[in-house]
C-alpha cells in the first residue's frame, strides 16, 4: 500500500470533480462506495483513509444515500457549493440516463440466461469489493484513540447486528454508534487530562 503515502492532491476545478465522479459512478455496480474509496483515496489522493472514513461516517448517520452525501461533502470541501453540485451531478447524471434506458430494455432481456448470469457474476464481485475495501480501511483503525482491540470488538458486534441479525441501521447507530462515540469521548478526555499533567 505504497500509494497511501503519496502526498494529497486536490482537483483543479469543479469540472474535474464532475468528470471524476461520473467515471467513478459508472464503475459502481451494486455499490459505488468501494469504488469511491479506491478512486478518491488510492488513485486521485484527494482524501486520506481517515478523511474518507470521517466523510463516510457523516454520510452514514445522516438521512439520504450515503454515497451521494459523500460526493456532496467531498465537492464542498474543495469548491464550496459549486463543487458540491458538480460532484453530485457527476454521481447522478450519466447513471440516471443509463438506468432509464435499461428500464425500457429490461422487459425484453431480463430473462436471457447470459444476461442473468453476468448480473450474478457482477453481484459476486461487488460483494468482494465491499469486503476488500473494508480490509483496506481497517488500517486506519491503528491510530484510533479507542485502541485496536476495542475497535475490533465494536466492528465485530456491529457486523453481527447488521449482517446476521438484520438490525435496521437506525438501531445500530443508536446503540453501538452511541456507545462507541461515548467511549471515544471518554478516551479523548483521559488523554487530554494526561497531557495537561505533563
Amino acid at each position, binding site marked *: 500500500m505504497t500509494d497511501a503515502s503519496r502526498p494529497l492532491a486536490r482537483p483543479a476545478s469543479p469540472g474535474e470533480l464532475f468528470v471524476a465522479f461520473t467515471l467513478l459512478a459508472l464503475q459502481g455496480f451494486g455499490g459505488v462506495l468501494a469504488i469511491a474509496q479506491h478512486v478518491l483515496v488510492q488513485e486521485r489522493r484527494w482524501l486520506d483513509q481517515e478523511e474518507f472514513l470521517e466523510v463516510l461516517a457523516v454520510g452514514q448517520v445522516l438521512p439520504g444515500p450515503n454515497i451521494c452525501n459523500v460526493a456532496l461533502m467531498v465537492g464542498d470541501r474543495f469548491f464550496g457549493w459549486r463543487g458540491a453540485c458538480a460532484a453530485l451531478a457527476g454521481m447522478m447524471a450519466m447513471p440516471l440516463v443509463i438506468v432509464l434506458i435499461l428500464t425500457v430494455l429490461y422487459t425484453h432481456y431480463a430473462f436471457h440466461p447470459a444476461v442473468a448470469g453476468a448480473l450474478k457474476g457482477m453481484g459476486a464481485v461487488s460483494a468482494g469489493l465491499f469486503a476488500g475495501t473494508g480490509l483496506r480501511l481497517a488500517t486506519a483503525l491503528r491510530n484510533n484513540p479507542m485502541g485496536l482491540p476495542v475497535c475490533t470488538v465494536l466492528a465485530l458486534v456491529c457486523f453481527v447486528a447488521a449482517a446476521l441479525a438484520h438490525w435496521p441501521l*437506525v438501531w445500530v447507530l443508536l446503540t453501538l454508534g452511541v456507545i462507541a462515540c461515548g467511549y*471515544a469521548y471518554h478516551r479523548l478526555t483521559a488523554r487530554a487530562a494526561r497531557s495537561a499533567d505533563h
Partner: protein
Amino acid sequence: MQSSFDLLLALFGHFVVLSLLAVGGAITVVPDMHRVLVSNMGLLTDAQFNASIAIAQASPGPNILFVAVMGYQAAGLPGAAATLAGIMLPSTTLALVVARWGRARRDWRAVQAFKAGMAPIVIALMFASGWILAAETPGWRHVLLTVAAAVLVWRTRIHLLVLIVAGALVGALGWV
C-alpha cells in the same frame, strides 16, 4: 396516465417526506414507497415496483436511482424528475449544512469522538454490505469469486473495473 401537475406534486411531496426518514439510504423506506405507490395510489403494479429496484441494482451508479425508475413508470420523465428531486433535496441540503458545521468545529472533543467512534462502525457496515450482497446468491463458486475479488482489492492495485468485467464474463459463460 394521470400525468397532471397534481400527480407530480403529490409524488414530489411524498418523496420529500421520505427523504429525511431514510437513514441508511432510501432502501430503508421502500416499504413506505410500496404503500404509497402500489397500495394507495395504484400507480405501479407489484411487478413494476420490484423491477424498479432490480434494474437500479443492475445498472452502474448509486442505487437511489430506483426512485427515478419508479417515478418514470408512474408518470414518465416528469415523474422521474419529481421523485428524484423529492428524495434528494432535503437530505442533500442537510448533509451540506452538517458537514460545514462539523468542519468548522473539527477541534471540538465531541466532533473528534464522533469520528473516532464511528470509524469501526462504518468499516463493519462495509463488511455487512458485502455479506448481504454475497448471501443473495448461494453456491461455492459464487463464494469463491467473492473471496477472490476481496483479496485482490485488499492486496493488489488491480483496477476495480477489470474485476467487475471479469465477474460479468464468468457469469455470462455460466460458471457461477
